[in-house]
């Protein structure tokens, strides 16, 4: 399966933090072609392939940011709050999908205030979260039949192509990571591994990090490599805080990561001619690597990232070749 097709399939599944079932089943289904797979009580997807040597875990998170319904107003409009770090700047007039009763998808539009109602000072800022609501075009009575507090809300799915093998869409954070792990597994199929391979697709990264914590504790790997997305170059973003889109896999270097693993990843990338760039962070990585490394008796952990523009919006942008580079580097690491 092509990376683009895997990514499209993965992003077509809903999986807001805490409600990852559909995303989990989709990822597990693809992974099961390569190894025995189970979906844990935690919602995590775990695959295991026995080999000779230490247990190496490849991890990416299943969940995506979204919104969560808090109340249905008597006017029929739906109040909500964030579920993970949604960006309020993309919300006015945005298309969203409410995952309602029996997982029925209901079209919604986030309200935006007509200019004639805005005072001058309001025009300069976005409405705060508690002033926003979702219009589903239904009365309170009708809406209440199919929507309840706790229901998750996603940006309406999009998936499209730009120039130069770039794609835009929703939930690339972190389905791009899941796709790269699946691609790595495909690259090593039928090859002799120098380790036992564990794959973890973790829930809850965007909220509590609980999925990775319990997943790593359960599997007790000797080493772990996480794949997440990181910031790519774009106007208005400092160059020193971003990687380059199309610049290859971003290899993480940070106090919370194992420096030997980071160095080994760089060496392999050089030796195998895999396009890479380094990403240096001063403390936490703000990824599951932070949770996995302190799980149980501690796990030596590395971090690879796919450069991504417009993170946490409905039009995240990435380059397919960067996913391929992440996959190749992971494959070489476990061989």
């Amino acid at each position, binding site marked *: 399966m092509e990376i683009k097709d895997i990514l499209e399939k993965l992003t077509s599944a809903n999986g807001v933090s805490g409600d990852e079932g559909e995303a989990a089943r989709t990822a597990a289904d693809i992974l099961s072609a390569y190894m025995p797979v189970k979906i844990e009580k935690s919602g995590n997807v775990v695959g295991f392939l026995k080999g000779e040597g230490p247990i190496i875990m490849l991890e990416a998170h299943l969940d995506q940011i979204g919104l969560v319904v808090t109340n249905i*107003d008597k*006017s029929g*409009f739906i109040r909500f709050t964030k579920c993970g*770090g949604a*960006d*309020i*700047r*993309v919300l*006015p*007039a*945005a*298309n969203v999908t409410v995952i309602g009763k029996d997982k029925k998808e209901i*079209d919604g*539009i986030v*309200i*935006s*205030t*007509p*200019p*004639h*109602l805005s005072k001058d000072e309001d*025009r*300069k*800022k*976005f409405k*705060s979260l508690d*002033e926003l*609501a979702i*219009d*589903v*075009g*239904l*009365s309170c009575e*009708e809406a209440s039949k199919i929507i309840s507090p706790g229901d998750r809300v996603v940006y309406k799915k*999009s998936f*499209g*192509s*730009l*120039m*130069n*093998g*770039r794609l*835009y869409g929703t939930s690339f954070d972190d389905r791009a990571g899941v796709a790269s792990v699946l691609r790595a597994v495909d690259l090593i199929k039928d090859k002799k591994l120098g380790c036992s391979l564990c794959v973890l697709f973790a829930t809850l990264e965007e909220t509590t990090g609980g999925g990775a914590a319990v997943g790593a504790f359960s599997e007790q790997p000797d080493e772990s490599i996480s794949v997440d997305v990181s*910031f790519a*170059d*774009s*106007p*208005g*973003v*400092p160059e020193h805080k971003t990687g380059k889109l*199309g610049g290859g896999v971003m290899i993480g270097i940070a106090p919370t990561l194992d420096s030997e693993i980071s160095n080994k990843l760089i060496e392999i990338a050089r030796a195998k001619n895999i396009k890479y760039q380094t990403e240096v962070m001063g403390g936490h990585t*703000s990824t599951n690597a932070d949770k996995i490394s302190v799980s149980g008796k501690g796990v030596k952990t590395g971090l690879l990232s796919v450069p991504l*523009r*417009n*993170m*946490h*919006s*409905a*039009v995240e*942008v990435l380059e397919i070749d960067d996913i391929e580079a992440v996959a190749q580097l992971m494959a070489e690491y476990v061989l």
Partner: protein
Amino acid sequence: MLDLLRQMSEIISASGKEKCLRDFIIERIKPHAEYEVDPLGNLLVFKKGKNRAKNKVMLAAHIDEVGIIVCFAEKSGFLRFATVGGIDPKVLLGREIVFENGVKGVTGLAPVHLLKEDEKNKAPEISDLYIDIGANSDTEALNAVPLGTTGTFAQKLEEFGDGLVAGRALDDRIGAAIMLDLIRSETEYDLTLAFTVQEEVGARGAAAAAFSIAPDYAIVLEATTAADIIDVPEHKQVCKLKNGAAVSFMDNSTVYPMELYELALKVAEDNGIKAQPKAAVAGGNDSGSIHKSGKGVRTITLSVPCRYIHSQNCVSAVSDIYETRALAEKLGYTFANA
């Protein structure tokens, strides 16, 4: 009529670039009426009715829409743009954009994680915004999307909620769909219908159209702000979805003759058509140009209430579109025979 509305909503028609939509309409009116295209690009249609009209009545709807126009390419390949007509920058972040030549892009934004606290809710200026088409250089970007190319939100019309439609440019595809439907049906009286250009950049096409046609009466068909949304007090809601055609007494470009305003509401009542006052002095439309044209034109505006106007998701009620069509037809005949 909804099918026509859906098809017209898929055509990109930013102000000044209305040819595609105009051609679409011409194809569909040819067997039903005579027409001409004036030097500005207005489509003027002469519909023969069963009876001759005592007064010349013009219906008008604009066929342009708000959009964006490419002004500059950064060395890195990102495109800078201006808006065509009024779009609030706050509804432009993180959107799929489609250009008139079919190229796709997205409006980008710095990741929220890297923003300082005071930047997280700060509205951008249009000049801060950019479109990413995936290009690696200015040359590559401009080869795909030359300067002056227009574009808009990549959003199709969809059924929404209970009896509503949501999509881009309902302002004023709704008016155009009503007129197109009228032209394709049998009318009681002769009517002139102007599909006007450049409304969103100052009601410019309508000035020329009204001059050429020199009608006695004009009915402008529009979509107007409905603020019947949560937390907006009743007195600021302007008009409400599902309450019928909104009839204007005054807006920012026109003071309508009171007798026409009252007549419109009476014709509605007499014919069992749902109508409501546009209960605010806000916005403006082609009436601003038409009522002052030549020796003067008696002008009224009938609007379909529309939430979130000028965004990628205008929301209107299907029933209001039909009520507005019915009132436009009855009022047109009343003027024709006055």
